[in-house]
Each structure stands twice: as structure tokens, then as C-alpha cells.
């Protein structure tokens, strides 16, 4: 086997490795049901804030403790705990993506992505 073929094979192996690693590390968009069945496993969950129930953030007690209730796309609700301050503009969000895993009865979010009504582009003329 000549050198070019060896290099080619190594590259193909690495490329396959990259694909496998992408599949292996990729999280999935799931709902709370799946997350509850697999506690500790990290998922992305898309949902909306339950505005009926109270969200909790009292920085004087603990600046790194924020909880709220999220209803996922299947309509299942769960308490979500986020060990960071309440994100700015949280109330305005129309869609919330949380990344994390189920720990007991609550979802421990490590990341929160807010999808606001396209932020600077809501077409409402103020008069």
C-alpha cells in the first residue's frame, strides 16, 4: 500500500469518527416524560412558561436559585430549577429552550435559551 492510500484511509477514519462523535454527543429535543424516564441524562426541552404558577427568585436569600414551571410541547408540566439569576427579559419570552436533566421531581437546567418575539423586530408602532 502506498503512502497516499494510507493517508486517505486515516482521513476517512477520522471523518467517520467525527460523525460518530457528533451522533454520540448530540442531545435531543425531548419532552418531560422522556426526561423523567431517564433521570440524569441531558436533554433539550422546548416549552412555554406557565404563567399561572409563580416563578421564584429571591436574590437576598440566594442569588443563584431561580425556579419556574415550564409546560413542554406535549403539555406536560414540570418545575425547573436554574442555578443562576433569573435571565433578563424572562417574562417576555414566548418560547423557552432549557438544557439539562431531570433530578428527582425537578428539572435541573444548566442553560436557558429564550426566544423572545424576535426582540428588536416586533412590528408595533408606538404612537
Amino acid at each position, binding site marked *: 500500500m502506498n503512502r497516499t492510500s494510507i493517508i486517505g484511509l486515516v482521513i476517512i477514519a477520522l471523518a467517520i469518527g467525527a460523525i460518530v462523535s457528533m451522533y454520540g*454527543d448530540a442531545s435531543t*429535543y425531548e419532552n418531560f416524560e422522556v426526561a423523567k424516564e431517564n433521570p440524569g441524562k441531558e436533554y433539550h426541552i422546548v416549552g412555554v412558561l406557565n404563567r399561572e404558577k409563580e416563578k421564584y427568585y429571591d436574590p437576598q436569600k440566594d*442569588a*443563584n436559585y431561580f425556579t419556574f414551571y415550564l409546560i413542554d410541547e406535549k403539555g406536560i408540566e414540570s418545575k425547573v430549577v436554574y442555578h443562576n439569576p433569573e435571565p433578563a427579559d424572562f417574562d417576555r419570552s414566548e418560547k423557552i429552550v432549557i438544557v439539562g436533566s431531570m433530578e428527582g421531581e425537578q428539572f435541573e437546567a444548566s442553560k436557558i435559551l429564550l426566544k423572545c418575539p424576535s426582540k428588536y423586530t416586533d412590528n408595533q408602532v408606538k404612537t
Partner: protein
Amino acid sequence: MESVTFIGEHLFWGNLGHTAVVVSFISSILAFISYFFAEKNPLDQSWSKLAKYAFQLHSLAVLTIIGALFKIIYSHYFEYHYAWQHSSRDLPVHFMISCFWEGQEGSFLLWIFWQMVIGQILLRSAKSWLNPVMAVLMLSQIALTSMLLGVKIISYKLGSSPFELLRNVMSNAPIFQQADYLSKVKDGNGLNPLLQNYWMVIHPPTLFFGFATTVVPFAYAIAALWRRDYSEWLKPALPWALISSMVLGAGIIMGGFWAYESLSFGGYWAWDPVENASLVPWLILIAGIHVMIIHKSTGNSYIVAVILIITTFLLVLYATFLTRSGILGNSSVHSFTDLGMSGQLLVFLLFFVVMAVALIVWRWKEMPRSAKDEEIYTREFWMFIGSLVLVISSFQITLTTSIPVFNKMFSANMAPPADVISHYNKWQMPMAIIIGVLTAVAHLLKYKKNGPEGLKRMGIYAAISLVLTIALYFGFELKNFIYAGLLFAGVFGIVANFMLLLPFLRGKIKLAGASVAHVGFGLLLIGVLVSSANKEVISINDSGKPINPEASSKENVENIYLERNTPHKMGDYIITYVKDSQHWVNTYYQVNYQKLDADGNVDYTFNLYPNGQINPKMGLVANPDTKHYFSHDVFTYVSSVPSNKGEAKFINEKRHEVGVGDTIFTNNGYAILKGVNSNTEAEKIDVNNFQVLLGAELKVYTLSKEYDAMPMYGVQNNAATSYEALVDEAKLKFRFIGVNPQNQKVTILSYEQDMSGDFVIMKAIVFPWINLVWAGTIIMIVGFFLSIIKRMGDLK
């Protein structure tokens, strides 16, 4: 709908701009056709003449579009959607320039502008390659100007015009039934506060100039395939490729610096899809430049060079598609809006992909190739391996970044890795190690043939680097052996390239561009390694306060609660939130840092002013403030502030019966009654109305300062009144409520301000040796610059 004549609109500028867009589109088509036939019929001069006129008309039209759009933004013509959406009356002029490219239309316009400028340069420099290269450039220009058309063809809207009127965009709103609607649109939406930063004035033009220049090497490669002239194009294309990599590299790092200086991400790189989308074309371009140089020096690897140069431009188009079609959706923190152009963007991308692939396949057999395997002990072999590693590295980044695309194609529900950083790092770190080592190995070897002395030199430098690495590993307090590998790669690259550089230092530095760039790259590697491996969040909550019972043991408690004027120990620092102040729309929170030495004494102090804009649309938009030291940065931002501060509330009422010379004690300080006067010259009180008016002269002492205060007591129509005195900075309030003539004492009430509502939540990070990142980048760019000068010299 009945027609209404609207009052106060400035329709001229919009019509001018829109006409200019149409002219620029049609003239780019005309220029393309003319350049195409000029290439086909080299003897017929009329085509190239026509092409030149069409291109000059096109350039004029592009400048007109920019002028009209700027006029609209600058004059606050809010009847135009673009001005209304992206600007407001209170913006300073330099931010109006940022408004220009906040919207997608504006950033396409910026790209069009740069490609036009590049076309003007080519017109003067491309000589025999002018016709085919310009033809390719005009193809790209046709595609870009079509993005601004905003014309409906049958039912498909082609492009999105920046000159659209507000009343047409929102034609259903009842306000637009009124002829004088404009008088009611008082102000625009304003510029996104994240972009109100001077880096946002220069980062986008730089990045887009980088993107725009990638079309030139691409155009030369395509032209070469078209002409079947496989050798001459490399010489003029190489300086362009170097310019492109220099500017694109500078643009990317400026974006990182902007993110570091003004976003609360806490770093300069986050493997965000948008960042990746600009990094990957740069990596492939760097690989392409190396293979081009291999081919120039040895005649090998022609096909790979062509493929890489072509891929660079295609990846720029892919990046455009990713960031502008809205497909990234939930996976990026950048919020790009979808203008409904994803179809058009996809056609744009696929057109160029198909054209390039077809040409390569068509000419495949003709392209020059070398017959024999390359020798292992040569520079070209290891340069080639290094380029391949860059390709693998880009492939891996592209793959994970494209997860949303795969979802769309295969209707899967994959999400990006939960821990994105470690996912990328576990691939990119070994790649970086190999590349770092290869920058030394390849450079120490010669082209074609090497004797044993080269290997000996390599061994010596490697040994020196190993010793340095061990010393630095402990010096930087690194704690992981893979870091030792990366550190060695950086050090070896610096040592070898620096030694190669030495002979050139006296006057011939121009020839050493490659060595300079690689020294910079080595420094960059070390800087990235140390600043991220030893990055330390110092705002860990160690207040001893009862932590919420539900708090888990997870270690992401990285924010600290700071009550105003209450010092707090944080790592080696004592920090105090001193006060806030308002400048323009931003609130600055002064945080005082006192650095403690090993004995617990104050070593030095400094203030940081992280700011926040309480934006009506986006809530708190926090901007960090950073203290730069030679060896580290202290980075601070407020992550939350009380939502409504409102009126100051006073609590802790205490009653004091005091005579002259007595002391009043409070929690915030103490006050001494210096005297009681009756000749009070009160400003806001009509003194003559009082039967009695007394003032208590108080001297108020806090830890650091003293103040005067005079609460007053008066009798008016036989009723007692009292006037309080506020000592704002000491957070104290006094009231004088009574006099006891028998024992010569007065009654004073003291109050302390309720500080529980006055706080900030803050995060602080120390980045060690982050200056190496910036220094490495600057040296690398200088290296590119030297190489460009040298390669341009070769053209003559």
C-alpha cells in the same frame, strides 16, 4: 382600499434607492454577460468595453443605494421601515453607521459594496485575467443584489428591499389609514443595545471585507479551469488569498474581542454556530494557501489546492445560508431574523456549488498531477499533512454546527451537544497540537530534499522546547497532561520559527512573513490554552448565608449578591458595590475591588464600572467591565439588578435626647450635635411665618467621610412642624421633633435607609494571560501582512 395622500413623507430618497437597486442588479447582469463574451471572443474589443461601462454603472448604482439609505437613517425618515426598525433619534452618528448593518439588507449591501471595491481594484490589476475573473465576480454580485430587490415575481418575493415603506410592511395597522400618520410615529425602534459598541462599528465591515475577498481566489481558480490555463493564475491569486485570510482572521478575532469586551458571555469564543460559520472558511483558506505554496514550490498537489480555494468561497456562502435563513433557530444565541429568503439563499448556494463541481469534474483529467509519492523528509509533505489536519478540523466543526440542517433534511430531532465546549475541545485540541508541532517541523525542513543536519536541528529545538514547556507548565499552574501537549506544540512552534526568523531580523524581515505568522500562531495557542484552562470564576458564593434548602450540589453557583456599601470577600479580593450612576441610557454600577496579599493586607485597589441598559424591549442588557493587567484580566458584569428601585425607604427609627456635644449613634455612623441655632436661613421655608424655628447643627461621621446636616423644628400657629435632613451618601436621615428647655436637650430621631432593595448580582471571572491571545493574533496578522508584501513583489 381607498387611496390616501400621505403627508410629510420623503418618497424621493426611497424611489432613488430602489431605482439604484434595480439598476445595480440589471447592470451586474449586463456586466456578467459582457465579460463572459469578452472572454469567449478575445479579438472583439467591443464586449470588454461594454463590460467596463456596465461595471462602472453598477458601481455608481451601489454607491447611490448606500447614499440613499444613509440619508434615510441619518435624517430619521421613519416612514421607511428600515430606519424605523433599526434606528432612533437619540443615536450618535457613529452608531448610525452600525444601524446600517444591523439589518440583513444592510449587511448584504456592505458585502455588495466590498465586492464592488474589489472589482475596481481588479479592473486595474488583473490584466490578462480580467475578463473571466470579473465574470465570476459579477455572478456573485448578481446573486447579492437580487437579495435587495424586494420585487414580487408571480407569488415569490425576490429579496427584501431596505427602502420598503413602513406603511407597506404593516399595511393592516389602522394608523396607516390616516394621512398624517407620520406625525404620530415619533421615534424608531432603536439600535439593539448589544450593538451599541464601537467594536460593532468596525467589526462587521472588516469581517465582510474578509468574506468578500474570498471570491477573488475562487474567481481565479474558476477562470483557470475555464481557460484550461493551469499555472499562471496562482501568482496573482496568492496575494488575494493572503489578504483574505488576514482580513477574515482579523474580523473573526475582532468579533471575539467584541464579545469579550461587551457581552456577558464570559469569554471571547463559545463555539457558537455563528462563530463557527466564519471560522471554518478561514481554516480552509489557510489550508488552501499552504497547498498553493506547495504547488508553487514543487509542482505537486494542484487539484487539492484548487478544491480548497473553491471550497473556501462555497463555505462562505454556506455560512451565509446558515446564519441568514433562520435555520439555526434554537441552537444559536444570535438572533437572526428570517426574512423569508431561505429559498433564495439556498438557490444562491447550490448554483455556485453545482457550477464549481461541474467545472472540476469536467476538467478533472486535464489538471496537472505529480506521478510519484512525496518524500517524507520534506517540507511539502508535512505542510500537506498540516493542511489535511485543518480540513479534518473544519469538517468536524461544520458537522456539529450543521445539526439543525440535518434535522431539516432528515426530519430528526437532534439538538446540539449539551456541553458544546467539551465536545468541540476534545476534537480541536489534538488537532491544534498536531498543527502547532507541524508549524515547527515543516518549517525546519527544506523543500524536496533534506540532509541529516535538518533533523539534528529539529532535535535540538525540540529539546529546548521540552525544557521550556516543563517550566511553563508549572509556571502557569496547569493541571492536565493534554494541556502539556498543547503547551509544547505552542512553544515548539515559537522556538523553531523564532530561530528561523533570526537571520532575517536585520533588514530582511519582509522575507520572513511566514515565520512571524507562525510565531504569532504559537503565542495564540498558548494564550487560548492558559486563559481558558485556568479561567477562574471568582464570584463564588461564600457568604456563609443560608443557601436555599433546595439548592443542589451542582457547582454552577457563580453569581454573588452584593448589597450596596457592604464589603464582601471574594477570593483574594474584597469587593464593594459603591453606587450607580446614569450616562445616556446606561446605568453604571461602581464596584470597588481591594486585592489582598498573602497576609490579608490590601495590596492595591481599583474600580470597575460594569453597566447595564434597562432596555424597554430587552430587559437588562449587561455590558461587562474589565481591568486589564499584564498577566491577567479581571472581568465583571452584573447579571441582575433590582427591577424597581423606587423611592428610598427609611427604617430603624431611634429616638435620641441629646444636648450640645452629645453623640447620636446609628448603624451607618455617628453624629455629634454641635449646636442649636435660631437664625436659620432655610431656603425653602418662609421663615417669617414661624413663631419659633430652630435648627440642630449635626456633624455626621461615617467610616470614611464627614457631613453636615441640619434637621429643623418649628412652631407655626401653635402647631409643631419638623423638617428632616437627609445625608444621602451616609444613608441616614434625621428629624428634629422637640425641645426640652428644662434640661437643655433636644429630641432627634434617626433613620437608616433600607438598603435591602439596593443591590447588584454580579459575576466575576479572572482570565490569566489573555493578553497572549491578542498579542499572538496581532503578530500573526503582521506576518500575513509581510507575506502579502512579498508575494505582491513577486508579481512584478
